[in-house]
């Protein structure tokens, strides 16, 4: 028989709680209202001095049974709920869901809508990675400065989303077979302006922090994720690529129009926190390239398939699993239709939750302060983890 992965290696590190020589272990509950757990996330941490010997995540403080809601809502009605999964990336959540439904119903999408989707997804990636860089630095203790710079840029992208879809974060923009509102030339020009200025922002940001010796010391060789564990644990997104595994759904699945664009996939070599941070920074630069190509090539045309139905949408019985490369990892939707207006089963594959599988493995042997930045580098949003 082949080897099974050892489940959670915490047992090996834990010595007797009452050790006469070393003293007691300290068990602390980080969260659910700890400043750096990124929401209502809780970790039961056992510390030996400052070293983590055991760490058990506790979920569910934000649980609202999203999947049950999806089963009791029409296909269209679930779309605004997907915004609220990972509220940084509503556009990619929308796309993943729309993709799954389109797969289920065999619904084609017009070319302009596909272009718009790519543009919005890449803007979302910029938005998410920028915020993550800010949050990660905040977790390492920078007094808000990188975070504020990140939010300054994020605000510009959110304004774009607002101008297009009407809402900054809860965009609810994609539809089965296209998009809801067409982009005006003025909007596309605004996107071009933001994209052109983004490189300069990244340069400044990297100058501020990437070469900073304190950051190097804090993040390098901290939370090393081995490629084998990453693959087995289903880690996806930048975290997987930081571990050196080349798996980007934009290349592998080639969904949407991604095969048309020329971009590279940055890979880390160490799989530590610094790699996770840097891979995201490099991905942003690739995203800028994709955005430039998409903005140059976007054609005119309809944005909605004329046969697509808004009201009374009932796909034939069957099932489909649609997944895309979200900024946090592979976001997938698994839908089973029984021919009624509501899906029979509506499942979200949450990248944040599954990326947390290895949290304990990464944190063991590091200090409490490292646990905080490792959590920060995993990039979770509790709306998606708890659903």
């Amino acid at each position, binding site marked *: 028989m082949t080897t099974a*992965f050892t*489940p*959670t290696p915490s047992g090996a590190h834990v010595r007797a709680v009452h050790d006469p020589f070393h003293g007691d272990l300290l068990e602390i509950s980080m969260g659910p209202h700890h400043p750096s757990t990124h929401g209502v996330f809780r970790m039961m941490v056992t510390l030996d001095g400052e070293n983590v010997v055991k760490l058990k995540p506790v979920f*569910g403080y934000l649980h609202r*049974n999203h999947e049950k809601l999806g089963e009791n809502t029409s296909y269209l009605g679930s779309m605004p709920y997907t915004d609220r999964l990972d509220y940084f990336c509503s556009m990619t959540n929308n796309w993943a869901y729309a993709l799954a439904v389109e797969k*289920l119903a065999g619904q084609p999408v017009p070319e302009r809508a596909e272009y718009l989707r790519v543009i919005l997804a890449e803007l979302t990636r910029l938005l998410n990675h920028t915020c993550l860089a800010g949050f990660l630095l905040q977790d390492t203790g920078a007094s808000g400065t990188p975070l504020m710079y990140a939010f300054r840029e994020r605000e510009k992208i959110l304004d774009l989303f607002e101008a297009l879809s009407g809402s900054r974060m809860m965009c609810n923009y994609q539809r089965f077979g296209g998009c809801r509102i067409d982009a005006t030339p003025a909007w596309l020009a605004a996107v071009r302006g933001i994209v052109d200025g983004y490189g300069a922002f990244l340069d400044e940001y990297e100058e501020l922090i990437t070469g900073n010796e304190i950051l190097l010391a804090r993040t390098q060789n901290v939370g090393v994720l081995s490629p084998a564990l990453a693959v087995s644990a*289903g880690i996806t997104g930048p975290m997987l690529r930081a571990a050196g595994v080349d*798996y980007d759904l934009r290349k592998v699945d080639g969904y949407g129009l991604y095969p048309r664009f020329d971009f590279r996939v940055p890979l880390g070599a160490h799989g530590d926190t610094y790699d996770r941070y840097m891979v995201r920074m490099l991905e942003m630069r690739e995203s800028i390239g994709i955005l430039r190509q998409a903005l140059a090539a976007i054609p005119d045309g309809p944005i909605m398939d004329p046969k697509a139905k808004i009201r009374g949408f009932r796909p*034939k019985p069957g099932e489909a*699993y649609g997944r895309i490369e979200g900024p946090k990892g592979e976001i997938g939707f698994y839908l089973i239709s029984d021919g009624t207006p509501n899906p029979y089963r509506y499942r979200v594959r949450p990248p944040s939750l599954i990326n947390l599988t290895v949290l304990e493995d990464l944190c063991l042997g590091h200090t409490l302060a490292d646990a905080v930045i490792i959590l920060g580098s995993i990039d979770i949003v509790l709306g998606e983890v708890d659903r």
Partner: protein
Amino acid sequence: METPEQIQARLAARFPAAAVTLVPNPAPAGMAALLVDAAHARQIAFFLREDPELKLDYCSNATGIDWPEKEIVETTRSTLADPAGGPPRTIEQKTKRIQPGYLEVVYHLYSMARKHGPVILRVRTGNRTDQVTLPSLTPVWRSCEFQEREIYDLFGITFEGHPDLRRLLMWDEFTGHPMRKDYVEPDDYEWEPTPHEEVLEKAKRHYAAPEKEGTP
């Protein structure tokens, strides 16, 4: 990548004792799933992971599905020749059949090494009440760890061999499995009645009624 039929044939040859059937998927882009029996599920999973052709090293998605028992009304028509020599009569006979319910776990498997997929693996429980134990595939794919905990939590499927099978999203004292189709929401999720009027009213309705009827 091999088609599900080819995989099924290979599995049947490799594990003669295992029951591997194909579950068709009528959706336009759908592909058939492999339904394997619980007893061999882990062996087959290991095989799929290690097989050099498939190398399905990545379990993207694991989820439960609840299929409650269904009453299926089948109509059979039989034509009877009239012994009196008249026109033959058609008799419609309706038979009610109870299709037993079961819980199902679906795994979407991909290969990161070979960049193909998916292969959809399904495992079913015996029923929805007492035979709800399935082998855990966490030893095969670590990504199932939280997902199987979630299934255990929301569907009530017990995974044998799971390293840390606790509720994931609901709190430990919670009873019931919310994602089951027949789950009835309690009046109030909090244990103590809150001062919120609506909740109190609901609670009153709920707790006073049995007394009136004299049932406990």
